[in-house]
Every structure is written in C-alpha cells, then in structure tokens.
C-alpha cells in the first residue's frame, strides 16, 4: 500500500486551487480540513449549505452557539462580512451557478467526471445537498483516497455506485496524485512524493492520459 499525501497535504493542495475573493463550498468530513490552509491575505467566502456565507472555522470550546453550525452540524464561527440566509437562497447560490468552487468527497468518480458520493448498495441512502452542488457549481474538486479501504479503485471507467451528478467533476485530489477531468478522460497532473506513474495506473480503474512530462 502506497501512502502518498496525508489528509493535511491533500487539503493544502486543494486550498491552492482557491482564488482570492471566491465563494467556496466545503463538503462534510475531509474537505473541512481545507479551512486550515487558506493562504494568508486571501479573502475566501466559505459557504455552508445550511445558510451561511463567510464561515470562519470551528467554534472554540465555550463559544459554540446551537444556532450557528456548518453543514456537518458542527458549531462554527463567522468572519466579518458574513451573511445568513434561508435554505432556498442557500441552494439558489449552488443551483444558480453562483458558487465558484465546491470541494467534496466521493465513493467513485468516472473518467467522464461523473460523480457517486451519496449512497452505496446496502446503505441507508442520504443525499443532503450533494446533488444540488453537482448540478450547479462552477467547479468541483474531489478530495478522496485513491482506492477503497480494501484496495479497489475509486476512479473508474463507468460508475457502479448510484450517480450523484453527470460530468460535474473538474479535478480530483487523491493521496496518490492530482488529476484533471478532460474531454479525453482523466489527465495526470501531479504525483505525490514517492508515488510512481505505475502506482497510479495500478490503482486506477480507468484509462489515464499521462502527459509527456511524467
């Protein structure tokens, strides 16, 4: 088993994709680590689907308010210049194409950028805001382990898990590498330290486009 990047390194890599002044939605779990890696001097407006633009970070102990939480139901803070709004407006931001970037997890991503991240066979299905994000966000980056816990590829030719959205993923950051989704398929962009092209190929269930530089 190749280690590659740890979660913090993946979050840091994802954070590098965030432009100054942009509006960014972070999925529950690993993507929230991105909060810690926004470069100083950049103004980033973090959107939480439950009705906040300008999330600051997780609330310190003693400062938690029961009516101020993020999409993962964790108590959070807000920045100066934040705003609160109801769910219809929050999802208008996503569905209407106003959110610049969403960073989320996945069970599977296909070579075409199709996304599966809401349910699996035998699982109680839960959807939350995932399909709305997939339907409307300008750019979606997936942060995930390159394979499942038992070593099966999560990057596949065709999804076998139920679809969240079609052709919606732009970029994938895994512990092994960074990939772009293009018309030609998945394009290798960067390799994690200590990871070879062959490692990526061996752990990927779809054909890869490997640029000459590798």
């Amino acid at each position: 088993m190749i280690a590659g990047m740890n979660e913090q390194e993946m979050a840091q890599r994802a954070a590098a994709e965030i432009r100054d002044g942009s509006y960014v939605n972070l999925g529950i779990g690993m993507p929230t680590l991105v909060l810690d890696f926004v470069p100083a001097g950049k103004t980033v407006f973090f959107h939480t689907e439950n009705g906040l633009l300008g999330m600051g970070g997780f609330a310190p102990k003693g400062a938690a308010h029961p009516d101020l939480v993020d999409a993962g139901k964790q108590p959070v803070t807000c920045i100066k210049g934040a705003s609160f709004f109801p769910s219809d407006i929050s999802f208008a931001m996503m569905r209407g194409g106003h959110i610049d970037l969403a960073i989320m997890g996945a069970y599977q991503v296909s070579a075409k950028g199709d996304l599966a991240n809401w349910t699996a066979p035998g699982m109680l299905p839960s959807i939350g805001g995932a399909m709305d994000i997939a339907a409307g966000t300008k750019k979606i980056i997936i942060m995930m382990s390159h394979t499942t816990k038992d070593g099966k590829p999560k990057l596949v030719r065709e999804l076998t898990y139920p679809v969240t959205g079609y052709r919606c993923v732009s970029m994938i950051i895994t512990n092994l590498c960074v990939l772009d989704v293009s018309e030609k398929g998945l394009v290798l962009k960067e390799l994690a330290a200590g990871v070879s092209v062959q490692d990526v190929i061996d752990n990927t269930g779809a054909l890869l486009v490997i640029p000459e530089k590798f």
Partner: protein
Amino acid sequence: MITKAFGDSLGAIHDVGDGAIIMFGGFGLAGIPQNLIRALYEKGTKDLTVISNNPGSRLGDHEYGLAILFKAGRVKKYIGSYPTATRSFKELYDAGKVGLDLVPQGTLAERIRAKGAGIGGFYVKTGAGTLLARDKETRLINGEEYILEQPLGADFAFVKAYKGDLYGNLVYQYTGANFNPLMAMAADITIAEVEELVEPGILDPNTIHTPGIFVQRILKGERYDRWYE
C-alpha cells in the same frame, strides 16, 4: 389589537391529530422547534408524516430533536434529505417500520417554497438521471436534462425563530433560519416558537424575516437546550 399568542406549547398544538402531516424547521439542531417537538411527544400524537431536513440529530451517544418522535414509533413516514443523521432512523427503516421519501436538500427547500408561493411545479437539473428521478417527468432545456418537481405542503409547520411578535412576525438568528421561513409559508397552520416574544412595533420592520401573514400561532418556548459545551 389581535394576538396570535398561545400560552404554552401544548396549547398551541391542541388540534394536531393522529395522521397529521407536519413540517419541522431546523438543520441538525440549529433552529429546531424543540419545545413544540417535546409537546407533541407528550401529547402522544401518532401516525405522523414528518417533513424535515433530518430526523433528529446525534451528538456523541445521544439523539436529540425529532429523534424522540421516531424512537417512540410515532412517525409512519419521513420526507427529508438526510436520514443518516440518527441511528434510530436507520433501525426503524431497516425494520420496515418507517417510510422514507428522500429529497435532495435544495429541491426540498424549493418544493416547500413552491407550495407557499402558489407555484404548481418547477424544473431543476438537481438529480436528473439519478435514482431519485426515477418516477419523474424529464425535459430538455437548452440541451440539458431537467426534472419536474412538485410543491410540498403540510397540515402544520412547526417553526422556531429567535424573536417574534404578537402578530406572528419572526426574526431568525445565525443559521437558525434554514427551512423555517419556507415551511412557515407552506402549511395550513404554522405554529412558531420563539426565544423572545414581544409586542408589535418592537421588531424593526426592515429586519423581519417571516412576515406575520405566514404564522397563525406563536408562543414563547418553555426551555432552550444548548447542547454544545
């Protein structure tokens, strides 16, 4: 001067009967009508259809909010976006004891608003081509697939606001708004609980989030648990 105020939660829900379809505001534990939920539990009302983003919330080993109604077997059907929020729901669902109508969160919000706004249906891309669109009409709009979604109403909406006045005007705080203002528009009878209940004219009319026309009953909540350290 009229007033929509009720003295307590049990009084405000006196006519909520078995089989009622009820919307509950809140996301996780933020903005949930916790006093109305407790009152409904005490009242023993059953065979409910519950519309809410999640069927209660889990914090550590405890479950709060709507979970008490589910655990007591009072709910026959749940319509919402995030049932995995509690373990109790999964147990009931796996045992075939509760129905589930899963709706993407943004579509849930928009369907509820549509009911309140007199919209007969609307098209969204959300969910097109997925399992959640199986029985839904589709339509190509500018070359992209959309699905037709229906308005969603209820007999009652239980909502929670930070402050309210005797005319039913409501003001929310932080992320406590979420589904509350939408549900207030979409039910036959909307019952609002607030942390502070004031005379008309105290709240700035420019900052009211839910105008009183959408609220039929209002009360000051008996007790507000804060849950977090």
